[in-house]
């Protein structure tokens, strides 16, 4: 299978009064067609900025400083704003965290949907409306014929997220970026929404990039995981390998911090990782996790390499480096300027 999305050495920075914040510091990963990839990290890890960079939704003072984003064989960073508009919402779509604020409060749900549909597909008013009703039905909204003429505040949080999903899928995108789509919802609704996304991607063959801090979500839906920390990818691999044998101390810490009902251990132990994420305005030169890492060594003051432990499973850590004494060269090198 070929890669649908290929990100290479992506760097996104924000120019602030206090200096340049390096939110994403050289990130490379790929998503294959129809695959669900989890992008996991704490808040401030750079996962959301990475997601927004993919469709170039970074606004000043932020900018993509370097890297390459290839989508379906096309270079997204080389595209004009107008060409991008034809891709956004059409071939790459996005769902956001908070369904309560994601819809325009004073515009009817139906109009917000048909607007997107008609922007990308050559449909008449009536056809677009029919399509919207059909989409609402697909995402499980009862009596969509009447609901379509209502305002967002007449929907519950879960229902709004369903509307958002319907909108996101209205043009049958090849890639859906879901930025914490269940975080703001109740637990039972979370499960329903995840179930819906899984169902829809099975029926439409849409690839999903699931951004989340919740490893539970990852376990339910993803086939591959990318773990981010301090603007860098710490570990990447198939979901079962990451859960069974995490290689990076950070991933290990993350996994320890989720409660596991059923296991004797899970009843008592809930260890959060101590400390706070690094300040990305002035990131420390070496491994960003050094300050919080239980295995920190002297060499960690230098940037480690990625070590591939199995096929498709790599991690950024000196512990895995057999030639620890060899010269350390920073892995995310400065890429070509955009």
């Amino acid at each position, binding site marked *: 299978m070929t890669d649908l999305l290929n990100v290479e050495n992506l760097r996104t920075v924000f120019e602030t009064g206090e200096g340049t914040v390096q939110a994403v510091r050289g990130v490379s990963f790929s998503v294959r067609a129809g695959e669900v990839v989890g992008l996991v990290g704490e808040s401030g890890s750079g996962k959301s900025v990475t997601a927004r960079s993919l*469709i170039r*939704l970074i606004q000043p003072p932020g900018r993509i400083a370097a890297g390459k984003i290839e989508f379906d064989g096309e270079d997204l960073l080389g595209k004009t704003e107008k060409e*991008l*508009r*034809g*891709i*956004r*919402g*059409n071939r790459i*779509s*996005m769902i*956001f965290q*908070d369904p309560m*604020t*994601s*819809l*325009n*409060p*004073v*515009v009817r749900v139906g109009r917000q949907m048909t*607007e*997107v549909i008609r*922007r*990308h597909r050559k449909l008449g008013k009536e056809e677009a409306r029919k399509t919207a009703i059909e989409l609402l039905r697909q995402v499980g909204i009862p009596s969509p014929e009447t609901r379509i003429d209502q*305002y967002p*505040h*007449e929907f519950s949080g879960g229902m709004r997220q369903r509307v*958002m999903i319907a*909108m*996101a899928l209205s043009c049958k995108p090849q890639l859906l970026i879901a930025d914490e789509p269940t975080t703001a919802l109740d637990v039972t609704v979370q499960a329903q929404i995840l179930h819906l996304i899984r169902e829809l991607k099975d029926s439409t063959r849409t690839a999903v990039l699931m951004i989340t801090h919740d490893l539970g979500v990852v376990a339910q839906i993803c086939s591959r995981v990318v773990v981010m920390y301090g603007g860098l990818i710490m570990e990447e691999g198939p979901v079962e390998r990451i859960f069974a044998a995490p290689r990076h101390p950070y991933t290990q810490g993350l996994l320890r911090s989720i409660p596991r009902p059923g296991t004797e251990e899970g009843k008592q132990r809930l260890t959060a990782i101590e400390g706070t994420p690094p300040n990305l305005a002035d990131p420390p030169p070496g491994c960003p996790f050094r300050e919080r890492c239980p295995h920190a060594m002297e060499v960690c003051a230098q940037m480690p390499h990625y070590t591939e432990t199995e096929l498709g499973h790599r991690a950024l850590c000196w512990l895995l480096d057999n030639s620890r004494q060899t010269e350390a060269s920073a892995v995310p090198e400065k890429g070509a300027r955009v």
Partner: protein
Amino acid sequence: MNNYIIRRIVQAIPLLFVISIVSFSLIKLAPGDPVLSFVTPDMGADDVARIRQSMGLDQPAYVQYFAWFKNVLTGDLGYSLVSHRPVSTMILERIPATFGLMGASLLLSLLFALPLSMLAGAKQNSIPDRILSLLSYIGISIPSFWFSMMLIYLFAVEFHWLPSMGMRTIGVDSIWDILKHGILPCTVLTFINVSVYMRYIRSNTISQLEEDYVQIQYAYGASTGTVLLRHVFKNVILPVVTILGMSLPELIAGAFITESVFSWPGMGSLGITAVHGLDYPVIMGITMISSILLVIGNLAADILYGAVDPRIKTTG
């Protein structure tokens, strides 16, 4: 929704009542004895007492108030001490000129303020934004009468392009003539109003552009123009109704001064003349009317807001 309207109207009634008491006190507290204006040197103390009685001035204040209030309800606001004409007639004559001027400037203000402030908000800190922001600072800081004087000097005195006084040229009866007289006062009021509205609408636009739904529109391929016109505009124009209601007192004060500088024959210049001549019944009448207009304006703004905002329509 209907409940909401009724509740707001019921809330306004006591307010109108208090306004009537305040207006009444304006006459009662006025310096000088109103009876004296009817007294001639040859009258004796008996005659003075009789006049006082016939005017009801020997009654306790609350009795006088209710008698007066009854008259007000029937539209009788008394007679001017200067021209001896009914106050209600005098005010009614003046209302079209005031409403015409205020209405025109209000409309123009919105026509300018909405697009300009949305542009400024969308292009925050750009050169046009900075220029507009400076202009609006000047607009809220400039004394309206001085701005009027400068315009009169430039356009009427120096260049003789526009008339500086009144609403009509004597002997000429055409709409064009009225419009020409209205240009300068209308410019003053519009400039000041636009400046006030711009500050609100601009900051509102900026905060709307930070909303999630805007980001999502971009994520779904909308252009900046689409986002502004189809999505932000609707959210920005709703609070404008409230801003209009809020700015009514300034609008009225501005109209008083501007009408007076341009001798525009409206309620404002009538009021100022009355204050100068201590013409209490007219003063009282104008206080009443302008306060009532203010209350009604605010009420209308609230109701209108309820009518156009879908969030209130279905829940309240």
